[in-house]
């Protein structure tokens, strides 16, 4: 019973990854539109995009870590 509840909870916790996926997509789509408007700024914009990618990916990983915590402890 507890095991089944754990599996259900871990599965529910991974729903949070949807938000992280949307965030990463937004970061790179705006990088693309910004680069197509001003290609000269590409190296600097890419640096900021990598930073934004790491920050928004981390929020998804928090949800994943909660799932692991529920599943394995």
């Amino acid at each position, binding site marked *: 019973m507890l095991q089944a509840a754990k599996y259900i909870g871990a599965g529910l916790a991974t729903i949070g990854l949807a938000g992280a996926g949307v965030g990463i997509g937004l970061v790179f789509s705006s990088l693309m539109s910004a680069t197509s408007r001003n290609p000269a700024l590409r190296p600097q914009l890419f640096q900021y995009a990598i930073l934004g990618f790491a920050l928004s990916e981390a929020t998804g990983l928090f949800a994943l870590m909660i799932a*692991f*915590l529920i599943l*394995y*402890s």
Partner: protein
Amino acid sequence: MPQLVPFYFINQVTFGFATLLIMLYLFSKYILPKFLELFLVRLFITKL
């Protein structure tokens, strides 16, 4: 999760901070000033 076994907390934190502090001392005292000196010498040779 094996990360959260409290038996080894003090051990790993001690090792981590000992490594970081020894590294900080070595780098700020000996290694990084040497590289700065090297860059200054190169600047002196080429520009001045």
